[in-house]
């Protein structure tokens, strides 16, 4: 029962992450390429492209964090684990707990920052995107990391 719920959540999150990451990377590649072409042909540059790309970098990094946690591709220092393979298991548990703490911190303080931005109504200069929307990626990252770590912890024990 619990297992199928985990699977379902994982499916939804993967779908969301993969499609949004694909679209953001694709759009930024397209926008920057268009910018190069325009600069060389009619000597015109798109003012919004730089802002868009900054948004994309923030988005891919914060949301990609969830994917990296799930695929266990985060860079870790594994010298100690390599020398003493026996302590791998307890260290992994400890590191998962630390990751959960980090995720909760990001959700809590990220949300606080979003609320601050909502009250001050700040917007980006060219595209007029509310900053609260951009800051929202921080608690979202916390949420994704949290769910992925829960998945890693419990999935292993089920099998």
């Amino acid at each position, binding site marked *: 029962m619990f297992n199928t719920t985990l699977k379902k959540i994982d499916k939804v999150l993967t779908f969301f992450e993969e499609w949004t990451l*694909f679209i953001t990377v694709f759009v930024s590649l397209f926008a920057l390429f268009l910018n190069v072409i325009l600069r060389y042909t009619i000597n015109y540059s798109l003012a919004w492209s730089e802002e868009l790309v900054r948004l994309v970098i*923030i988005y891919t990094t914060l949301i990609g964090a969830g994917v*990296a946690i799930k695929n266990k591709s985060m860079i870790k220092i594994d010298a100690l684990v390599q020398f003493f393979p026996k302590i791998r298991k307890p260290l992994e548990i400890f590191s998962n707990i630390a990751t959960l703490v980090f995720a909760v911190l990001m959700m809590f303080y990220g949300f606080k920052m979003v609320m601050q931005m909502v009250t001050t109504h700040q917007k980006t200069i060219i595209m007029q995107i509310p900053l609260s929307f951009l800051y929202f990626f921080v608690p979202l990252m916390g949420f994704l990391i949290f769910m992925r770590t829960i998945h890693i912890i419990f999935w292993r024990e089920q099998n």
Partner: protein
Amino acid sequence: MNITDLIILAVLLFCMAAYIPVFMALFFAALVGFLFFTGISVQFLAQTLFRSLDNFALVVVLFFVLCGNIMNRGSTVQKLTNFADALVSWLPGGLGMTGVIACGLFGAISGSTVATVIAIGGFMIPALIKNGYDKKYAVGLMASSPNLGVIIPPSISMILYSMISNVSLEGLFLTGFLPGVLITLLVCIYSFFLYKGKEMKGAKKINLLKSFKDGFFAFMLPIIIFGGIFSGMFTANEAAVVACVYALFIELFIHKSMKIRDVKKVMVDSAEMSAVLLLIVAGATCFGRYLIFENVPGRIADIILSTIHSPFVFLLSVNILLLFIGMFMDIISATLILGPVFLPMLTVFNIDPMHFGLIMTINLAIGYCTPPMGVSLFITGAIVEKDIVYVSKSVFPFLLIQILVLLFLTYNPKIALFLPRLMGFF
């Protein structure tokens, strides 16, 4: 060094040793520092984490990663390796030369050491052993050559160094070619004399012209990237974007080695890989903010400047220190944390920041295969199922070559900076 510095250092080392992802380890160390020793709220740190990513310059990382992944997924890497093979495999020790040249070519597009060890070492080590090469030679070669990926541009650590030091990225890229070529050449010469007069099985006849024709569109890629950057036609990030579009185009429509549906997978993978790298940038920024707040770089500079007086001794101690740190720490966080510590001292010793960026990059890259802790040693050790002592011994001659090149370029700044000066980036 006072007691708070030691506590923070202990927290950082403990988190890293405890298998916590590096970026979180950096974040936690900064968190402990800010919480207990400064009284600034955690929200400031969360804000720093977010703000450090709001930087247009970082887009280069994403697109060079994407470009490397497209070529890896498609057939470009294979074609480049085939050409290297056709070029040198008839010589004594030729297959070994193919290995190091393949690492150089792969490094020229991917910029990641660990990826190169797995991608090229995974098939080169068995191939070398099968063709009668000494196992020790095969292991040493494939543990050390992937360092070229970091040294030969486009290199991600160079991108980040130029960001923190305001050194011209194009110029810094140019300095990377000389050590790249020198190391490749010396390893080839070493292989040549090691296997001279021995009958090897791998020496097959491959048509040079055919493999060149076959790989023609693949060869155009480095030409577009570097020709574009160094002629001043593109900035580094425009070159990365154009290279991505070009690589996508040739893999989809000319080599036909990728399907449309692979595009999504490649882009998601690249976003993930760049996220892993940029999160470390964010973590290192948070930690760096704490260091600056406590004036740690300034205090370290005071200690060093009062004890060391000659540039020669300074550079030598930097070489040794970075070799040591490169073993434990990944190159990105090491560059971002130590860069700001060293940069203010350079003017005192009259060292050029661009030259220092090159030294730092080669130095930290060598750390990947320095016994007893280098990451590459463990990966190659796992491939051949040998322990760390065996791999450490086998990597020794190759390590020596790289250290010699490093020392040569450290103490000959004129030669190290010759290319950027020639092209007007210095």
